[in-house]
């Protein structure tokens, strides 16, 4: 279990390696409308994990036989820039990115009013520019902002964060070494700051009780992110009104 490159401990004197408390986020940066050609766009960083997202559509779906006459179809593409990881990652789709695209699409499907756009397609593109764990969470948060920025009608905003177990303790927002050498990594997304969970992925061994503690922490973290997302969208809207 003592993998090459593993630090001796992930929590030293009650602090994590980057100085955080157990229930702290890394510095969060978020923006909307950061791209000019996209209909809607968003940016979301957890520390040095940087994600951007763009939304195009609703627009006509070709070929025609793929259209759904009663509602819009959602397509979601999560990719990582080749330079976003320590070892250069080959461009194109990996099995990991295919899986993440699927769970992110399902999470966002819960909130979009697809019935308003029969036969159409809505495309969401998520690009991880720099990766230091929790990339799917940053990407999903950026995508939610981009959908709102594009004016796609939604029930509410989806928000996502990671929790995990490191040195036996439940902690919020996994960073690189914690993801690689910690015990458990969990990604959770909820709708509008409630406890409605639309994305949940878990890797690593923990007890039922520890999991219940972790999911509560994650739901709480998502609610905080939901507030930030709404704030940045309101500010942008006000900025445009002036």
């Amino acid at each position: 279990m003592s993998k090459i490159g593993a630090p001796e401990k992930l929590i030293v004197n009650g602090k994590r390696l980057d100085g955080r408390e157990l229930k702290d986020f890394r510095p969060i940066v978020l923006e909307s409308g950061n791209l000019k050609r996209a209909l809607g766009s968003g940016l979301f960083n957890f520390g040095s994990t940087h994600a951007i997202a763009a939304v195009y559509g609703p627009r006509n779906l070709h070929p025609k036989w793929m259209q759904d006459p009663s509602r819009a179809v959602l397509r979601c593409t999560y990719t990582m820039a080749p330079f976003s990881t320590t070892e250069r990652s080959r461009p194109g789709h990996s099995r990991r990115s295919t899986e993440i695209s699927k769970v992110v699409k399902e999470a966002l499907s819960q909130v979009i009013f697809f019935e308003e756009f029969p036969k159409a397609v809505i495309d969401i593109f998520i690009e991880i520019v720099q990766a230091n764990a929790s990339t799917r969470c940053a990407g999903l948060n950026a995508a939610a902002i981009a959908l709102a920025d594009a004016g796609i009608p939604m029930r509410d905003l989806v928000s996502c964060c990671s929790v995990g177990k490191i040195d036996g303790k439940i902690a919020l927002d996994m960073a690189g070494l914690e993801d690689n050498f910690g015990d458990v990594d969990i990604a959770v997304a909820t709708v509008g700051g409630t406890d409605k969970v639309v994305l949940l992925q878990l890797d690593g061994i923990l007890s039922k009780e520890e999991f219940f503690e972790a999911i509560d922490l994650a739901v709480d973290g998502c609610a905080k992110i939901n507030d930030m997302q709404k704030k940045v969208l309101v500010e942008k809207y006000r900025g445009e009104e002036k």
Partner: protein
Amino acid sequence: MINKNESYVRKLIEDGTREDGRGLTDFREISVKTGVIETAEGSAEVKIGNTMVLVGVKMEVKEPYPDSPNEGGFVVDAEFVPLASPDFENGPPGEEAVELARVVDRGIRESHAVDMEKLCIKEKEAAWTVHIDIHVLDHDGNLIDAASIGAMAALLDTKMPKWDADNKKIIRELKGKLPVSDKPVEITVIKIGNKLLVDPTAEEESALDARLTVATLENGELCAMQKGGDGYFTVPEIQQAVELAIDKGKELRKLL
């Protein structure tokens, strides 16, 4: 998609019943047979109702990765061969096969049931890779649970070949069992309306709101989860699903 009967299926389940008369937390008949493929080092055939999955394990030798010079490898592949369903006409659904493989992979990998260091033959030079191939032959729902138990059964059935280092060849005179230290089992809980149930048929799957797969160990701990579907689970529903998966996992583990 087979969703003509979607509303009928939903109505039945909201009333607490199912088309085939099962209770919401009952599995269909399950059988797990091992040693079914002579050409594989380990194999299993799993039937759950009309669903049939074949799993084969092949042992290969590769140079270890530079960042884990004394460890072997572990790969899960899943194929939805077009024999299995009329829905696979235009090519089987890629993202579902990828998800199936990755969810089964994580359920086993994260359990540490297969010790990667024991698979090393010579540091930096040669190590065994355990290649698990999941072959879906008949698809009537609940593929994750079928594939997960099939993969564990095939691993427990796996005999170790020998490595002829001089000639860089595998000699398939089997000399012992693959060391496996735990028996993780994945159970998928389905939500339709406000009901939770297990072991859906393909028809029931087409009507689901959300699903949650939970991998549990012999000691009752959790080691992997995956939520799917466009719907949501509330936190109390998740807690209820986890309890159900722990119970059903114990039941299915007896088949290994």
